């Protein structure tokens, strides 16, 4: 039986009168890429932020690697976070630091007794794996949107996480760069043996990267399964329109 690394049950989250998640159930199995699709504001990002303890659910449970996230103290939560890589929508690179310093930041704080040589080697290795070794001494403001996304992913990879959470990895990028990012997600999955959740509303990204797709509609998963299963035989008008809009079906 395949191990479930993330398990959410009856997850409820509201912001004042806005009910974002209304009883979400989710299982993420080791080694798979799960794509969570949904409209803007449907609660996709909220879902993964609850998984890393950036937000707390109102009701329900989230177990990550067997641990109930909301019951962890700050030390335990930090230990869990080291096993999770979180790639932010806007990359969230530290503006005042160079690319090298951005990558070193989690490393120096979480890996003890690391020599400068080892540190440099790890930074260069992970930068090379996202194909941006040449940007090592540049500032984030000097990078393009696609490069920033790649560096953001590299920063999360440096601690070699077991789970990767991608928040809108292709948002705001041109189609060619989107394809590069999609390929990178697949390469990361293969090379680092990660299990991933990819939050997106880009169906091409979902098709290329996802082993399984789940569509978030009105605070719960409206459909889930393989891409073709979910979209090609969709009966729900909202899922159909999502597909039609993305692929410009007449």
């Amino acid at each position, binding site marked *: 039986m395949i191990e479930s690394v993330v398990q959410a049950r009856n997850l409820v989250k509201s912001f004042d009168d806005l009910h974002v998640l209304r009883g979400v159930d989710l299982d993420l199995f080791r080694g798979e890429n799960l794509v969570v699709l949904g409209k803007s504001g449907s609660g996709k990002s909220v879902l993964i932020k609850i998984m890393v303890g*950036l937000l707390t659910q109102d009701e329900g449970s989230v177990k990550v690697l067997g641990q109930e996230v909301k019951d962890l103290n700050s030390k335990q939560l930090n230990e869990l*976070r080291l096993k999770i890589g979180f790639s932010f929508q806007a990359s969230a690179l*530290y*503006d005042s630091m160079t690319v090298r310093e951005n990558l070193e930041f989690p490393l120096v704080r979480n890996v003890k007794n690391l020599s400068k040589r080892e540190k440099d080697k790890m930074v260069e290795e992970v930068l090379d794996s996202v194909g941006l070794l040449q940007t090592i001494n540049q500032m984030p403001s000097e990078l393009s949107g696609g490069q920033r996304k790649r560096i953001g992913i590299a920063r999360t990879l440096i601690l070699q996480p077991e789970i990767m959470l991608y928040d809108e990895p292709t948002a705001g990028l041109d189609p060619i760069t989107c394809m590069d990012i999609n390929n990178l997600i697949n390469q990361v999955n293969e090379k680092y043996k990660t299990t991933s959740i990819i939050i997106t509303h880009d169906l091409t990204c979902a098709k290329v990267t996802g082993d399984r797709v789940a569509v978030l509609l009105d605070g719960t998963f409206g459909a889930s399964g393989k891409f073709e299963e979910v979209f090609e035989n969709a009966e729900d008008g909202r899922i159909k329109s999502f597909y039609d809009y993305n692929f410009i079906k007449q």
Partner: protein
Amino acid sequence: MSGESTKKDKVISKRIDRFFMGLESAYLFVKRFFKEVWFPPYEFKEVIRQCYQIGYNSLPLISLTGFIVGVVFTNQSRPSLAEFGATSWLPALISIAVIRAMGPLVTALIAAGKVGSSIGAEIGSMKVTEQIDAMEVSATNPFKFLVVSRVLASTFMIPVLVLYTDFVALLGAFVNVHANEMTSLSTFFVQVFDALSFLDITSSLVKSVIFGFTIGIVGCYKGYNSTKGTEGVGKAANSAVVMAMFLIFIEELLSLQVTNFFRQL
């Protein structure tokens, strides 16, 4: 009519709620600072970097302002003393005014504008671009890295800047006194130090430490709690300056009362 007054009551009650919630959140923020400052990991590198930003980068502005304050205050005070034929008391008058009040106050107000706003804007923009969340998910305590380091740096550096401003303002005063009364440098500074007591210097330094802490914590609090995108960043920077300046004047008033109490002992 009664419907209108109920609406007004609701608005007032909401404002009162917001005020007390703000007070509570500020109290919790300060409490968290004092809780986290003692325990490792210590971000020494970041504290030193911030000391450089706050201290060294403020020097040109502080030098210019301090010098001008010294020159202008001396010039404005001369006619009043000249009426009593007491222009020889200028160095003593200036030293007391500069060390007791003007040096710390001018430095703190300038730092509130320059340092407070930059801390508020920097942390605010980090908050709205999810950089603070990124630190958190990489198992780093952003409060320690961003807030504790900046508050410590401003608490250390403002007293140093105050001493520097005092010196530059006295230098400005000397230039003016020398040009008009032909007083020598040594005579000027002998009179300056004769007029000062131990209490003047310690009270000035103690209040500078409080001003530094205020500037740092207010800037960090406003930035850390900023919302609503870039508009929120601007608001955070602006309210950091306004709130810090307001608190600095209140602290100045309180410190005057406390110092006077000790002076009378």
